[in-house]
């Protein structure tokens, strides 16, 4: 069947419980009730701290075929996922579904355990490198499910993704299971993704390298949700968890894209006192923060809140009073981690609060402007952020779908050409974010406004930026690089890309 973005989705996909095609960003109306974790009991003076991960695996009752989860706040410095899966493998447990909030290159270490059948299915926001290749190969027993951050929170809360045991890397944890992410040698800042796992998993195991006497304060994940605690030597490599302050790009092409994007914001009609903004962590987005700051200072306006994925330029704006409050699901650098620890206007939030489309209202619904990056964009404004030019998984959906749908103005930035490949094309290989939720595409050679947004197009006429139709951008790209042949794929489905509401926006087939 053809879904709402024109993709052919089979009516049945082996390994996927129910296949609902994507219709529109808010077409699907959920019914039913939220899922609840098992009822727990903890008697006075009982001990939660265990000696080893093996003991915690036993205590959690983990068995063949269950689902385990992890968070990716330690990014490419994460030790927890690899060490827990190695311990599970040692115990001979097999057939698990691995459901982390995302996967990084460092997690390539688990590839042998996937090959040995310890893990037979994966549900994640994305993957890179060899893990991405493996997930695209179709070698797993079920298709990988790709979900956005908001979509994952939704799937957990409504029971589509039931977590049997959540293993939560805890930068600081007290002896009764209160956790925060701002203290300890492996501090990562917000624990926003892990909060949902802790609240809904049947069993929750905290793995920490900074066990402190009771009570820990502040509390991000409370004792009421945590069953077991395992102290270990190290849960991550601080160098991989957070960089120093990321440097603003010096790449003139990224700077030009950022300049066009921020000029588009300035003239969009949304650049007003108390507007709200989310910026990504890519080069052009960081540069955009600098230009936006200059424009806000010049016009004398401040933002009511900033959302993210938080980076140092955002923190600077918070500290200078240009942004009143920052809501934070994840931190990318040391200044952001320091800020969430000390600044009351810098608030931690869960992935559900951030972006879950099926709750009483995520904060993305209050967002005015978001700048998002893209791997490929097509003439229907559909965006691919998951597969590369060979059709192999090499990225993550993250909050892309969520913020594009929620924000009043969603701007996608991408170079028109990467090396000798066009990035604006007739059809993206994989649709992640539907074009009807994307308002403006910004490249170094031109800016295209979605025809659905005639109002924006009018507003941008006054800005001195090269406005053109998206087809014109594609033509320029093809003129330079030629029209790429479509990637040859088989019939076998290696992964499905869920829209944030649980419908299928696309499938990823194995490449020939």
């Amino acid at each position, binding site marked *: 069947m053809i879904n709402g973005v024109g993709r052919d989705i089979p009516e049945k996909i082996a390994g996927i419980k129910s296949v609902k095609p994507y219709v529109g960003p808010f077409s699907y109306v959920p019914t039913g009730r939220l899922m609840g974790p098992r009822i727990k009991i903890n008697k006075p003076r009982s001990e939660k701290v265990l000696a080893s991960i093996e003991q915690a695996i036993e205590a959690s009752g983990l068995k063949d075929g269950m689902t385990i989860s992890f968070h990716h706040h330690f990014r490419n410095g994460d030790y927890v996922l690899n060490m827990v899966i190695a311990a599970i493998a040692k115990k001979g447990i097999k057939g698990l579904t691995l459901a982390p909030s995302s996967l990084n290159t460092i997690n390539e270490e688990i590839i042998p355990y996937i090959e040995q059948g310890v893990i037979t299915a994966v549900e994640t926001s994305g993957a890179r490198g060899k893990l991405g290749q493996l997930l695209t190969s179709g070698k797993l027993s079920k298709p990988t499910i790709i979900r956005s951050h908001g979509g994952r929170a939704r799937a957990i809360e409504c029971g589509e993704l039931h977590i049997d045991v959540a293993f939560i890397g805890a930068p600081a944890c007290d002896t009764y299971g209160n956790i925060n992410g701002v203290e300890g040698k492996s501090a990562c800042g917000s624990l926003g993704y892990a909060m949902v796992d802790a609240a809904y998993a049947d069993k929750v195991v905290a793995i920490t390298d900074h066990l402190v006497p009771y009570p820990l304060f502040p509390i991000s994940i409370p004792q009421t949700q945590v069953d077991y605690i395992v102290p270990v030597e190290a849960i991550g490599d601080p160098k991989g968890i957070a960089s120093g302050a990321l440097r603003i790009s*010096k790449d*003139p092409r990224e700077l*030009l894209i950022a300049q*066009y994007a921020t000029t588009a914001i300035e003239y969009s009609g949304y650049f007003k006192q108390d507007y709200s903004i989310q910026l990504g962590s890519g080069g052009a987005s960081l540069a955009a923060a600098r230009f936006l700051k200059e424009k806000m200072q010049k016009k004398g306006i401040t933002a009511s809140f900033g959302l993210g994925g938080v980076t140092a330029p955002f923190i600077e704006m918070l500290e200078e009073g240009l942004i009143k409050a920052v809501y934070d699901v994840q931190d990318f650098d040391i200044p952001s981690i320091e800020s969430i620890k000390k600044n009351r206007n810098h608030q931690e939030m869960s992935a559900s609060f951030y972006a879950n489309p099926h709750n009483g209202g995520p904060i993305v619904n209050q967002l005015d402007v978001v700048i998002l990056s893209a791997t490929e964009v097509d003439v229907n404004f559909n965006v691919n952020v998951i597969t590369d030019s060979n059709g192999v998984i090499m990225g993550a959906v993250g909050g892309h779908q969520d913020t594009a749908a929620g924000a009043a103005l969603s701007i996608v930035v991408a170079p028109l050409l990467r090396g000798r490949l066009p990035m604006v094309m007739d059809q993206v290989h994989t649709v992640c974010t539907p074009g009807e939720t994307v308002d403006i595409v910004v490249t170094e*050679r031109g800016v295209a406004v979605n025809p659905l947004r005639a109002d924006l197009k009018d507003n941008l006429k006054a800005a*001195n930026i090269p406005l053109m139709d998206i087809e014109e951008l594609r033509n320029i790209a093809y003129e*330079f690089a030629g029209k790429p042949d479509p990637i040859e794929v088989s019939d076998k489905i290696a992964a499905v890309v869920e829209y944030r509401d649980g419908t299928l926006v696309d499938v990823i087939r194995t490449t020939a």
Partner: protein
Amino acid sequence: MKLRRTMMFVPGNNPGMLINAGIYGADTIIFDLEDSVALSEKDAARHLVYNAMKSINYSCEVAVRINHISTPFGYKDLETILAVKPDLIRLPKAETAADIEEIDEIITAAEIKHGFLPGSINMMAAIETAKGIRNAYSIAAASPRMVALAIGGEDYLADLQTSRTKDGKEFFAGRGQLILAAREAGIHAIDTVFGDVNNEEDFIAETTRIKEMGFDGKSVVNPRQINIVHEIYTPTEKEIDHAQRVIAAYEESLARKSGVVSLNGKMIDIPVVKRAQRTLAYANAVGKNEGGTTL
């Protein structure tokens, strides 16, 4: 009014830079076949620039800096590049009018051969020696194709037996001579590059200084320098406002058939009127529009 506020050098042997050279808003891009290209890369660069100019539609003025005709590469550069009709040929290390005259003849022949409009390919010369500075006017006036003189950087300082300082004393004599020669010949004067791309402060100071001296623009080596120069060269609201009032007063005096122009009770000389006219023409040329991105 033709603007040459920024002339951006682009190494001729870098395909990625050649492709994107036109997107940053420089008034002129100069594809370089000379100093930024190693001897072993001269053929490749010439070939790349030829093909880039043939296939890419650049929306700004395109110049090519050839190797001097006294090197083994200069004539080959001209033969190849003239076939794709550059807007401008930039000769490095110009010392005499004879250099210019010889290239003028080669261009004339190429225009006939390729069927281009006669006189449609312009020239500029970079002066990089004391001898060149002494001959600056005759170089500037050597051909009707000449549209600009530029002062070279390191070569010139080496010839002068000095080096760069923060406040640019070393360039004082050369810049002064160059601007006089260019103005006498009625062509543009272009300042040398500022290589320390990350030193924005000194770059701004130098650009402000050369604008005050009368230079029409500056050679740049990085797209990040373009906006800075353009901003310095853009007339301020105050300057535009004043110019408008001067012109209004001038027009009023014409209407009154009076030879005396006065604004706010003060007499205004005709040169002031001319400057005001130039300011307004300039503001018009830079497309100064309210708050827009001037790229």
